[in-house]
């Protein structure tokens, strides 16, 4: 397990509120018993829709745009990752190379799933997200720095304060974001709680 205290790199802007996990990873790609190769299908339907418009002069989907191919930071708006609990969504983002998500707000299940993969989802203000998106739309090679020690997102000379639940921050900074090891540490305590529950012991 590794400590995650900062993520630096170029960023991919993905505009829109309430982008659900069905859009991030359509259900037909859940038809597999492993997560491997999922990244090829990230936003597959949204990409086709946007790319069709792009051929008529619009902009391609950011996940199809070569300018963002090596991005490690994903910029999103509000309620990102709502809907289905499918971990396939953050798994695919991580496999694509995304190492931090910066947004206005996140669905709770998506947030927890991401913690378990070592993918911090940090919150900044709507204005800050807007400014960051505009910046990387104009200059895709701009570097964005997400620091969990300083609790700031910085680009060029400008910094924005970020928030992240204290427990998640602690998990990343101590390298304990994969919780299973900790959960297995005190088996007697688990057994004590179980044996005190009347429905476990049979009333």
């Amino acid at each position, binding site marked *: 397990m590794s400590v995650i205290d900062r993520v630096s790199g170029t960023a991919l802007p993905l505009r829109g509120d309430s982008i659900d996990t069905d859009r991030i990873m359509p259900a037909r790609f859940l038809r597999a018993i492993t997560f491997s190769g999922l990244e090829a299908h990230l936003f597959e339907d949204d990409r086709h829709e946007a790319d069709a418009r792009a051929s008529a002069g619009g902009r391609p989907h950011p996940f199809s745009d070569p300018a963002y191919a090596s991005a490690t930071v994903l910029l999103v708006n509000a309620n990102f990752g709502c809907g289905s*609990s499918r971990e396939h969504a953050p798994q695919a983002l991580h496999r694509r190379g995304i190492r931090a998500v910066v947004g206005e707000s996140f669905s709770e*299940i998506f947030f927890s799933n991401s913690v378990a993969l070592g993918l911090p989802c940090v919150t900044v203000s709507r204005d800050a997200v807007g400014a960051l998106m505009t910046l990387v739309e104009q200059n895709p090679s701009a570097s964005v720095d997400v620091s969990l020690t300083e609790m700031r997102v910085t680009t060029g000379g400008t910094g924005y304060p970020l928030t992240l639940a204290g427990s998640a921050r602690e998990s990343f900074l101590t390298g*304990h974001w994969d919780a299973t090891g900790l959960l*297995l540490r005190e088996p007697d305590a*688990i057994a004590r709680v179980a044996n005190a529950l009347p429905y476990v012991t049979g009333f």
Partner: protein
Amino acid sequence: MPQTLLQKVWRAHTVRTLPNGQTQLFIGLHLVHEVTSPQAFDMLRARGWGVRRPDRTFATVDHIVPTKDQRRPFLDVMAEDMMSALERNCRDYGIPMADLSSGRQGIVHVIGPELGLTQPGMTIACGDSHTSTHGAFGAIAFGIGTSQVRDVLASQSLAMSPLKVRRISVAGTLGRGVYAKDVILDIIRRLGVQGGVGFAYEYGGAVVERMTQDERMTICNMSIEGGARAGYVNPDETTFRYLEGRPFSPRGDAFERAVRWWASMASDPGAAYDDEVTLDGAAIRPTVTFGINPGQALAVDERIPSPADVPSTERSLLAEALDFMGLASGAPIAGTPVDVAFIGSCTNARLSDLREAARIVSGRHVAPRVRALVVPGSQAVRQAAEREGLDRLFREAGFEWRGAGCSMCLAMNTDRLDGREVCASSSNRNFKGRQGSPTGRTLLMSPAMVAAAAIAGEVVDVRTML
């Protein structure tokens, strides 16, 4: 000090405080299905861990299972692979499973309650966001991802942060033709799709207190669409009567002792809530979604809003929704033509849902170009419906009558929309592409409203057909 049900359940299941400040919470029931579990079992094997409490774990197949031809091996090779993987994992780890030959298979959130596995005061987890359904019994039930499925398999516990509680009271009475589905769509419409983030929703008030367990499940099921990870109703006589005699319910004296404990877990009078909201049940009308998230909904007699009518933060999403749906601001939602009618899903595929829909279709016929199907929530629902002759009513009206599964709610099997078809659906999500076609369009509504739309060939107020 008076406590909420959430606080009592949380305290009774706390193993310890983790170094990061989260609570290690014991999970009383872990429900497993074929789609979000294979990777979790692989992680267990890779790390050499076992399943800590197979006796507190229960599996079934629902997401990918075909609903038309269920003979093994399935024609769908991937469905066969996922089914076989679950069977192997359950065998290897001693986990009980309701498979297709059991007579007990079905959507995981339908069979848990039906079998009496789901009980008040429990913590329940499942790798599916609609696990909130089980809150209808006064359980605290969480949807989780695959890594957390691994956590629960290995440790029978989860690392969780505390939730706030919002009490949502629905006062008064519901009008004729207004169902639990309309109540929850109305709640989400008013509080928003992210209004529940950080909260568990406690549903109460006269309307909810009078509801059957089936209706309470419909409400709790869609808590997640309102952004709340969990939702619950305090257990009462309705709950206890439902559970009596179920296969996994306690029996005899143990049942009496269980009822006393279950009742003690309900929120105390005077418990403090982090937020309280009251709605007037009489004001709720049959409700239909028109957009691409469940909060974009209207009463059936309303007109589609224009971006100028909504707060600036919702404007771009509304414009995107109207563009995707091909609907025009100012047009009535009633009269919108539908191509497909789907009665099914963990939200609305229980016996009472099928009865309400059957009342509408009885003696009528599905409109000529409409493809209509009923997918019962479980084998038990299907059998009970057949004993009552509901299958005959549906078939005679022109509906297909299928085997149990998630089917066209998320279209992981062959039940899916084609192209830009519009589907009147009793399911829970109208996200872009949700029903299997990237351009397919979903209108969420109650099963009775779906039945009415199937007959009329367009969105129609079910109250005119009762």
